[in-house]
């Protein structure tokens, strides 16, 4: 047992936080944006690796 657990507020609602439709829509749109950004980052690093070729590890100051 820890103090942290003892200080945890009790939830009155056993289901926890229930999202409204608007909150679900907002979360979904944010999740899609994050997924697209990460996908674009993967593609960017992949393409840049091809561009740099063997020199990919050479990063001059």
């Amino acid at each position, binding site marked *: 047992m820890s103090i942290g657990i003892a200080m945890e507020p009790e939830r009155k609602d056993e289901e926890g936080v229930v999202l409204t439709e608007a909150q679900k829509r907002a979360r979904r*749109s944010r999740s899609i944006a994050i997924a697209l950004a990460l996908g674009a980052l993967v593609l*960017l690093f992949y*393409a840049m690796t091809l561009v*740099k070729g063997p020199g990919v590890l050479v*990063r*001059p100051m």
Partner: protein
Amino acid sequence: MSLISEGAGLRGPMRGPLRGPLAAGPDVAFDEPSLASVGDYIALLKPRVMSLVVFTALTGLAVAPGTLHPLTAFTALLCIAVGAGASGALNMWYDADIDAVMTRTSRRPVPRGRVKPREALAFGLTLSGFAVVTLGLLVNWAAGALLAFTIFFYAVIYTMWLKRATPQNIVIGGAAGAFPPMIGWASVTGSLSLEPILLFLIIFFWTPPHFWALALYRAEDYARAGIPMLPVVSGDATTRRQILLYTAILVPLGIAPWLLGYAGFIYGITAVVTGAAMLVLSWQVLRERRPIETASRRLFAFSILYLFLLFAVLLADRGWGGLIARLAA
């Protein structure tokens, strides 16, 4: 009592006007799931500022000697844009309290409650890290280090310190907005020289007339927020003189790339004509008295066009050929 101290006196129990993000109120809604949309997060990036940053960085990148693969150039500009956006998010995190009381900024996502301050902070820090590391890894570390310093300068030196501490806030802080052409240049060369420093100086000396022209007709807004802008602290007359002084320094700097042989005749003519217009408008601002603010508004609007024209003509004059050569290479 000055306007600024009156504003400061209204700012509650914390240390005068220096309250930072906590001034947006206790974060009581931390258990409430966010309603923030993607658009709210895009607004945190200050897209209009970002577009000017990208444009000046593109000019620095295009006029730099040497070669750079188009995809590497794109990556550099993307990182600079994201870094600039991250600075904006950090600025909105820290300035939520003063944004809330200023008409111009009260609709921003944090004061509206769409994005919580700590979400804006996390967003800004994450993007800063990604932008700097990606620029360093994929382009070069000189550019990455410059971008990191720019973000630090804007978020910490300007936003957290200078903005609420001194009427010279936008003079010194203006350096943050002047770094992008240097980062663009360093992305190509991995170093700096006189030419990118000249581009830095043009934006640096452009910033005070631009922002003080705005501050002249928004002085009450700044006073209410407790920001020590020059018109609030030193009054209209001093501000109008300072605007003319900085414009008098700016105009020769604008012409300098032509005089030093970095740009051609078309750039020179553009810099002379638009520089003369800046001087005339600054002179009109000097002679103007409240409540008339036509000249101030004109100078503010024209200063944007002035900077855009200088960099656009320089890009067309010097950079366009370089970009085409790089694309063809």
